[in-house]
């Protein structure tokens, strides 16, 4: 079966084949990533072939200058993560037929990461952030026990989802928070953080949760589900971040906008069945955060001028008693 592959080329020495077509600049926030030159190759492969099969066929039989990183070819090592048609994917797991769009498949290194050459990108931002979450178990300050720690199956079941992470970087390269906020630890690191914080053998869970609640941590995730969508191993990093948020709040780390936001949200729904937008923003920002309150004033003024002010008198939905009863029964700390 014939497939057409467009390879995004980047050569730090700046030399390209004549038929490599200059691509458009990447939009913000990736405008500083060099535009790729797209070179088109035709390959003849079985219909079940994957993108990596095509890239290897190109490198072996057509153009040995194409740089591609790969090892296991079985979605285990994570080294062939790249953009396939503009989204993070493992080349070895992406079926060509499925990824053929308008008669072709476009591959390139992600503009969200530093490019080294062609499809090979620098994983430094990935590992730098990974190290920030103390990715190992901290022992209790006691001599090692005479026998191994016994850990229940149930407690490990909670961690299995994250343990399947292969550190390929798919989640980080498409993370929308990381794209605008390089201080954000990233979905890969925070999923790993959950793996250690929730491990019953770890002795510093409380301290970890404090660190993860700081700037750049769990509350800087924008909840866009890109990491859940792009993870090739089903780790669902966002779900692990949400578990960390719950753990952090339960551990008492509540002096942050995220917790204030959730509390104000719950309070409004409990008492009226609906969200009170008029009070949500100031409550989330914090009444004593004068600078934060001032920052929101211009947009509040614009909204008022456009006639988009939420009703001053917040209406309660009929049958709100039901909602209150549900909160009383299962509301936990929102009771």
């Amino acid at each position: 079966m014939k497939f057409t592959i467009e390879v995004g080329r980047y050569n730090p020495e700046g030399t390209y084949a004549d038929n490599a077509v200059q691509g458009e600049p990447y939009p913000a926030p990736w405008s500083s990533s060099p535009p790729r030159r797209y070179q088109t190759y035709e390959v003849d492969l079985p219909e079940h072939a994957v993108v990596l099969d095509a890239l290897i066929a190109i490198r072996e039989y057509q153009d040995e200058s194409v740089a591609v990183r790969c090892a296991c070819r079985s979605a285990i090592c994570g080294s062939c993560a790249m953009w396939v048609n503009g989204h993070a994917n493992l080349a070895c797991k992406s079926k060509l037929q499925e990824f053929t769009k308008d008669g072709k498949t476009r591959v390139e290194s992600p503009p969200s990461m530093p490019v080294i050459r062609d499809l090979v990108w620098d994983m430094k931002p990935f590992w730098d952030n990974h190290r920030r979450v103390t990715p190992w178990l901290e022992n209790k300050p006691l001599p090692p026990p005479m026998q191994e720690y016994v850990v229940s199956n149930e407690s490990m079941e909670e961690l299995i989802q994250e343990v399947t992470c292969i550190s390929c970087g798919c989640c980080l390269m498409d993370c929308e928070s990381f794209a605008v906020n390089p201080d954000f630890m990233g979905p890969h690191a925070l999923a790993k953080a959950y793996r250690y914080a929730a491990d019953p053998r770890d002795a510093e869970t409380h301290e970890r949760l404090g660190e993860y609640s700081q700037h750049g941590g769990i509350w800087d995730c924008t909840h866009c589900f890109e990491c859940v969508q792009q993870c090739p191993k089903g780790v669902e990093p966002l779900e692990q971040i949400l578990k960390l948020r719950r753990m952090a709040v339960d551990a008492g780390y509540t002096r942050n906008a995220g917790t204030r936001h959730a509390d104000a949200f719950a309070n409004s729904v409990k008492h009226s069945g609906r969200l009170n937008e008029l009070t949500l923003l100031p409550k989330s920002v914090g009444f004593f955060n004068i600078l934060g309150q001032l920052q929101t004033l211009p947009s509040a003024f614009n909204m008022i001028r456009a006639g988009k002010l939420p009703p001053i008198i917040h209406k309660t939905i009929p049958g709100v008693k039901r909602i209150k009863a549900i909160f009383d029964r299962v509301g936990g700390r929102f009771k």
Partner: protein
Amino acid sequence: MKVAFHPGCVSKGACPELYISATKIAGTLGLELQELTEAPCTGAGVLSEQNPELGDSLNALTLAMAESMGGTLMTICSTCQGVLSSVNHTFEKKPERLEKANQTIQDQGYTYKGGTTVKHLLWLLFEDIGVEKLKSVIKRPLTGLKIAPFYGCYILRPSDSLGLKERPERKTYLEQLIELLGAERVDYTGSGKCCGFPMLTFNRDKSLAMGGNHILEAKEKGADAMVTPCPLCHLNLDGQQPDAALAISRPLETPIFHLPQLLGLAFGFSPEELRLDHHVVSTKKALEKVELKV
């Protein structure tokens, strides 16, 4: 076609133009809206993330109410759609969660049997109302208007719970619709990305930059306006646009239409009827392209 209708908090709060335009165009499309006036807020993912059982119970109540009214629930908000789809998906995969939620809502006189289909107006247009019906009610094709689609995360991801694996065409409905209404669609990379709204209170500058970048890209690709099926995206892209322009130091001035407003224009409603004169970013220049004044 009768549908239970969950308008969502924002359409009754800071985006009244969405509720007004949606109820106006429903009649034209032959939709009989039975509003769930007693249904609670979905929690927008915020309540579920802090307390999954609470999220399950509140949304099971809404789904049960819709079930008793025929079983098709229409949303006009990507976020409401995402949360209700996700809860429905969880109940299907983990019946024990449904059972637990039912134990809570049974005291309130409701039981959810798992039979409600939740559909955003955008999906109903293509899957139930149909393209032919839609074409037949277009009175004013939006010829000459260049529109960039903006979906909102929760109507695209995660694809499992939204049924996008079975119906991948759901990822293209906005583009198709723009063309069906006679407008020109603007392709750009930001259409499926995050507007930044969920981060607005936690990290304001980054949230504004996120939304601002997408508007800038759409504008640079020639868009006269953008259209979104999500009022939360609208709050960030329209409501915060002047601040977003400051955050990325670039002029933006790109009006953002709610999905029902774009439909309404093509159906012949006046801009005032659709409250297009109640936006933070003026819709004037875009409307002039289709010879309308506001």
